[in-house]
């Protein structure tokens, strides 16, 4: 029982990170139909920039803030400099561009930073919290809390603000959005920026637990993509649920079967979803009537 609880704790923590990466995929996909495989690099940049700023003597909160700002700028630049010039190309071409961007960012990170693993100090120390025979790092609670705050803020933004509704409108019908005067390019800009910021925050809070290096983005992008697929691509609640589920399945697989299979779970889920339920768990319900 304590063992199960332990697996659930660790599953929830990584699951929260997958959920945030999945949300990043969803935001960009909804605004532009692009699957952004550089999403994982946003997480890497958040962590790595913070690590190196802290090492240079910048206080952690300020370093984190700068890292989020810089990563957001990278997200915007990715859209303006790489995606936007290829507007109108086929989805496959655009996906190739994001994969290229991902490789490019990894290469740059390797040169600017290094090829080693790095950590950050935990926000509330590293004394484990005991609960029901299992233990949890205080930083895990930080990860969960930050993920929850981001999800709630994003939800409030989409439901309560006119800009949020313009994002929903653009996702629902781009032609109509343009015809009522929404500058849909700015909406896509905005989605890239928000996705990058969310990724960076995830990278910062999870680094004390999982460590970071120039190449953590590759696997994270895959996991986040699996989360978004599992939840139903394009559904924000789906991405969150998919991420948490994926984290739990991984932790249970690692715990009860073998940690060798942990990463294979994501591939398996992507395959199963593609073949058996392309709509995912929360695939867009069509309520249109003609």
């Amino acid at each position, binding site marked *: 029982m304590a063992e199960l609880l332990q697996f659930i704790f660790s599953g929830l923590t990584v699951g929260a990170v997958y959920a945030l990466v999945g949300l990043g995929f969803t935001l960009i996909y909804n605004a532009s139909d692009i699957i952004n495989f550089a999403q994982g690099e946003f997480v890497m940049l958040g962590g790595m920039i913070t690590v190196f700023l802290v090492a240079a003597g910048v206080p952690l909160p300020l370093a984190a803030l700068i890292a989020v700002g810089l990563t957001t700028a990278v997200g915007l630049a990715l859209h303006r400099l790489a995606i936007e010039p290829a507007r109108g190309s086929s989805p496959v071409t655009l996906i190739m561009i994001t994969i290229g961007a991902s490789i490019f960012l990894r290469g740059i990170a390797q040169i600017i930073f290094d090829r080693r693993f790095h950590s950050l100090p935990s926000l509330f120390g590293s004394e484990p919290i005991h609960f029901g025979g299992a233990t949890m790092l205080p930083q895990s609670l930080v990860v969960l809390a930050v993920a929850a705050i981001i999800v709630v803020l994003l939800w409030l933004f989409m439901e309560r603000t*006119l800009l949020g*509704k*313009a994002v929903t*409108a653009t996702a629902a*019908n781009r032609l109509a959005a343009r015809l009522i005067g929404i*500058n849909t390019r700015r909406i896509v800009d905005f989605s890239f920026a928000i996705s990058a910021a969310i990724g960076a925050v995830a990278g910062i809070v999870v680094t004390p637990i999982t460590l970071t290096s120039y190449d953590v983005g590759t696997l994270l992008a895959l996991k986040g993509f699996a989360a978004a697929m599992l939840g139903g691509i394009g559904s924000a609640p789906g991405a969150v649920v998919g991420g948490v589920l994926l984290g739990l399945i991984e932790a249970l697989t690692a715990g009860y079967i073998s940690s060798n299979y942990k990463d294979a779970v994501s591939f398996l889920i992507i395959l199963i979803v593609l073949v058996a339920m392309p709509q995912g768990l929360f695939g867009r319900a069509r309520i249109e009537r003609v």
Partner: protein
Amino acid sequence: MLSVENVTSSYGRVEALHGISLHVDDGEIVTLLGANGAGKTTLLHVISGIQPITSGSIRFQGTPFERLAAHVRVALGISQVPEGRQIFAPLSVADNLRLGAWSRTDDDEDIATDLARVCTLFPALKALSEMPAGALSGGQQQMLAIGRALMAGPRLLLLDEPSMGLAPNLVDQVLAAIRALKDDGLTILLVEQNARAALAIADRAYVLETGRVTLEGTAKQIQADSRVREAYLGV
């Protein structure tokens, strides 16, 4: 108000409009008739800035328009009710209408006044205000699409087949609303396949065939034209 001169436009290498010229004067309803695939929607999209123009020019209230981005054109006063309605299905009726005013910079009071006017024009929308737009019937969606376009506060309204797929009594209702908008001073370019209904409320008409204007005149002249009677009025 609007003048289109020698406009050509293509999809890839296929030219869909081969030099269209037409004009819409202040306060008129001008209707654009034509069979499937004639290029009516393409022309409206060129005017709205959705479809690129290859050559020719567009002037709106005297200013050259053809190089402006779509969202700028809306802000300057051209609003389109697209073919097939294209409402924002997941958003509520109220949100659809509110977003219609997205490009406006005037204050909330003016927007509220226009919202009240839309609700007077289409009383049904008021009762449905919290419904997701995707759950509305076809006729309600058409009213919403028109209402949303009106919320932008346009001077020129482009309508693409607003009667398509509607029951006859709803067609009458929509046409009556268009007529009422004209009486309020709005200028209208109405694309229709339902030539009889469109000619009944229009001042002038153009007939478009495979990307060319083949006939133009007052609604009366067009109605009396033997070719139109045969091809579009089924007489």
